[in-house]
């Protein structure tokens, strides 16, 4: 029997729920578990209801599960809201003094969190640490892993904070150990050491390892943590991160930096990207590489700032005035975000054009265990960038020289004697402003020719076929894990489904998608939006009309259970 254990820690904003979740997840990581953890929070700093789900399994997990084994309730609301999701043998940890919860079930453990925090560390704020300890004690986990997690989490805060937290956690742990639940979670021996990180961290690591040297940004959920991570690394990794006056400045600065020769990136959400759109077209016209990370959240306008959606697929495909080549990539998993970041930097430079990375709040903020990234696999490809030696041999340099591929040799300003001239106006090969029709046609066609090469770089969708499949389940971006797991669950019920997943969306892999859907199975597109944007895109690009859609647009992430419940409705 596979082990699959789900925790949910809940409370108000300000009670340290994120900290509970992370320490729990790290403790389980050290015990060899695979983790998937997601966060649900409101757009407020204090109060409200926040929760953090941690799923631990002895096999790879890529999606959340809604069925809970252990509820860690730092307030009454957490119990009221999530009790119904507990499995039959599910348990609750709470402090009755706080929750006034009198339901005398066997599965409830009343832990005097407040009292233990005061006794162990003379600090009421450590209630959350006591709760983590109690949760792990209740399932007889190994306390050494909890201690390691606390040491790592609070290392920067100093020895005293570490020691206090360990005492608080062990107080909770020991208390719960005296009330065994009968359920146990044993560390897995011999598991390889893995990394635990969220989508934004994975993307940021990919950017830094991939040679991104310049980032400009204006904070916006869910992408602020990318800016913060890179700012935190700026000294040790020699990166410039500028907190700018607005998103318009962000993209134009990134374009300026890239024109001068450094790999540059911006990260925002839909509202910020809306402001960047004119700059996107500038990158297209001036053939300047730039990578734009768009972490989607529900819109329109401010929408639901701390929740998730995939409502900006069409926006990213069509944003920008005029016609110019672009690539749109949408990582499917935390692990893939790293790979896609590197690929985006390379494509932007090879094709001298903007590349968009479309993520969403769910991927950005969910944590997953991944094998340690192999940095030796990271290849930095700078395309037609000329070496100093090549530049020194140039006589008549034309930045926008017309070529068969549409890609012009790229010199940098002050690299040699060559003058690098470019213009947002239509320009000639030398980069100077023009008005004549013949040059316009020449340059327009030159730029658009780059799409051919770009098309060849786009990977086919990930396809997992099942024998005698009745269904093709099609997804894109962050829903990968949920669809993957839904297919496994369907298989147990005797329903065979293929999985077709796009994480590289534009230029659209028309041939591969057409081939994948060319079977007798019923095709259903699963996406987090209300208008079935991918389904329409598939029809537009392949002519194939899918049979159905599973859509979610309440701001919550697609889960395996959501897919199965809706599939049953769709099929019946």
């Amino acid at each position, binding site marked *: 029997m596979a082990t699959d254990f789900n925790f949910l820690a809940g409370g108000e904003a300000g009670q340290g729920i994120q900290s509970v979740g992370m320490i729990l997840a790290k403790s389980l990581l050290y015990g060899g578990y695979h983790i998937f953890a997601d966060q649900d929070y409101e757009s407020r700093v204090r109060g409200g209801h926040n929760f953090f789900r941690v799923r631990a399994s002895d096999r790879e997990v890529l999606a959340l599960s809604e069925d809970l084994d252990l509820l860690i309730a730092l307030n009454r609301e957490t119990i009221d809201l999530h009790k119904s999701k507990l499995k039959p043998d599910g348990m609750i940890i709470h402090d009755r003094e706080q929750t006034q919860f009198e339901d005398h079930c066997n599965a409830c453990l009343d832990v005097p969190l407040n009292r233990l925090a005061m006794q162990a560390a003379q600090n009421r704020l450590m209630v959350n640490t006591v709760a983590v300890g109690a949760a792990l004690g209740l399932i007889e986990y190994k306390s050494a892993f909890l201690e390691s997690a606390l040491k790592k989490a609070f290392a920067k805060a100093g020895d005293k904070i570490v020691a206090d937290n360990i005492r608080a956690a062990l107080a909770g742990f020991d208390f719960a150990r005296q009330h065994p639940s009968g359920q146990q979670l044993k560390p897995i021996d011999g598991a390889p050491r893995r990394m635990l990180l969220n989508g934004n961290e994975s993307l940021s690591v990919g950017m830094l390892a991939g*040679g991104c040297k310049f980032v400009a940004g204006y904070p916006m959920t869910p992408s602020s943590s990318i800016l913060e991570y890179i700012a935190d690394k700026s000294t040790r990794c020699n990166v*410039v991160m500028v907190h700018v006056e607005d998103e*318009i*400045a962000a993209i*134009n600065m990134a374009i300026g930096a*890239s024109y001068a020769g450094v790999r540059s990136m911006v990260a925002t959400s839909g509202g910020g990207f809306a402001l960047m759109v004119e700059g996107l077209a500038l990158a297209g016209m001036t053939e300047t590489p730039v990578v734009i990370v768009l972490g989607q959240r529900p819109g329109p306008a401010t929408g639901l700032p701390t929740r998730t959606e995939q409502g900006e697929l069409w926006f990213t495909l069509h944003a920008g005035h005029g016609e110019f080549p672009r690539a749109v990539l949408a990582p499917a998993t935390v692990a893939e975000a790293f790979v896609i970041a590197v690929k985006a930097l390379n494509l932007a430079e090879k094709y001298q054009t903007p590349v968009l990375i479309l993520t969403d709040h769910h991927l950005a903020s969910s944590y997953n265990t991944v094998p340690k990234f192999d*940095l*030796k696999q990271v290849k930095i490809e700078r395309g037609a960038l000329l070496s100093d030696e090549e530049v020194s041999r140039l006589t008549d340099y034309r930045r926008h020289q017309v070529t068969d591929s549409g890609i012009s040799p790229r010199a940098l300003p002050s690299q040699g004697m060559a003058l690098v*001239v470019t213009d947002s106006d239509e320009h000639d090969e030398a980069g100077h402003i023009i008005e004549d029709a013949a040059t316009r046609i020449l340059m327009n066609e030159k730029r658009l020719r780059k799409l051919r090469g770009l098309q060849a770089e786009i990977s086919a969708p990930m396809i997992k076929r099942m024998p005698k499949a009745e269904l093709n389940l099609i997804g894109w971006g962050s829903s990968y894990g949920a669809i993957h797991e839904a297919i496994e669950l369907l298989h147990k019920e005797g329903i065979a489904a293929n999985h077709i997943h796009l994480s590289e969306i534009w230029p659209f892999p028309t041939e591969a998608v057409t081939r994948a859907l060319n079977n007798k199975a019923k095709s259903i597109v699963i996406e987090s939006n209300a208008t079935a944007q991918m389904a329409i895109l598939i029809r537009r690009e392949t002519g194939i009309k899918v049979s159905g859609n599973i859509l979610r647009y309440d701001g919550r992430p697609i889960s395996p259970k959501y897919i199965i419940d809706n599939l049953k409705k769709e099929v019946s």
Partner: protein
Amino acid sequence: MNMVTLQDYAESMHIAWCPGCGNFGILQAFRKAMVELHLEPNRILLVSGIGQAPKLPHYTHGNVLNGLHGRAIPEASGAKLANLELTVIVIDGDGGAYGEGLNHTLAAIRRNIRMTYMVHNNQVYGLTKGQASPTSDLGFVTKTTPMGAGQPLNPLALALASDVSFLARGFAGDIDHLSSILQMAITHQGFALVDILQPCVSFNRVNTFQWYRKRVYKLDEDKSYDPTDKMKAFAKVQEWPDRIPIGLIYRQERPVYEEQFHALKELPLVKQKLDPLDFEAHLDEFM
């Protein structure tokens, strides 16, 4: 040091400004400044927005990023941070600098990145054929402001209030004087704003060469004027329209933005090697 001559900054294409445009004088002053500073065209980066003035980079030589309307400043800032060895000069009009891009202008003044901002201020939109600009005189009637333009912005006062580190005003009709201002601006350690009075011969029949000639006077001829005295500078930028001071208005030493970045201490970003393995040590944080 190579000899730099006016020929190095000769016209690179046919100039499309109106005959008699104030921009010709500014272009001449710019060329003269480059020659006197011995700056070769390959070492300078000219960034411009959209308008008549922002066409200037096309009419001379240098590296050129002719970007979007109002966005020249962020484009230039990114390029400067990427390569500190570039001498960055931004060329804009009053529409780009004080209208569409005002937020960036103020942000750049506050940051104090080393670059020169030449604002050709003709108090009217020339490229789009004669609409009011943020600096048009009160009541200036144009096709988009038939009721007359509203209260004009005083960009110099705004720059001072934002603690600008170098502020000067030049006049397109006095090429030598403007050239010397540009030389001061380009050698200044920080962000330099040079507002340039530029008569528009097609759309501004009020603020003409003659109108300016009657009113401008040179601050540097007044030995008692101290350009490090901010309160005196504030008084000077209020003088309009009876007498209009030109020359260096204010200068102060302030920390330069780019110096705060560890990443820029040794080599310009663009010259730094990219090695994915450098990141290896940071992966442990996730384990």
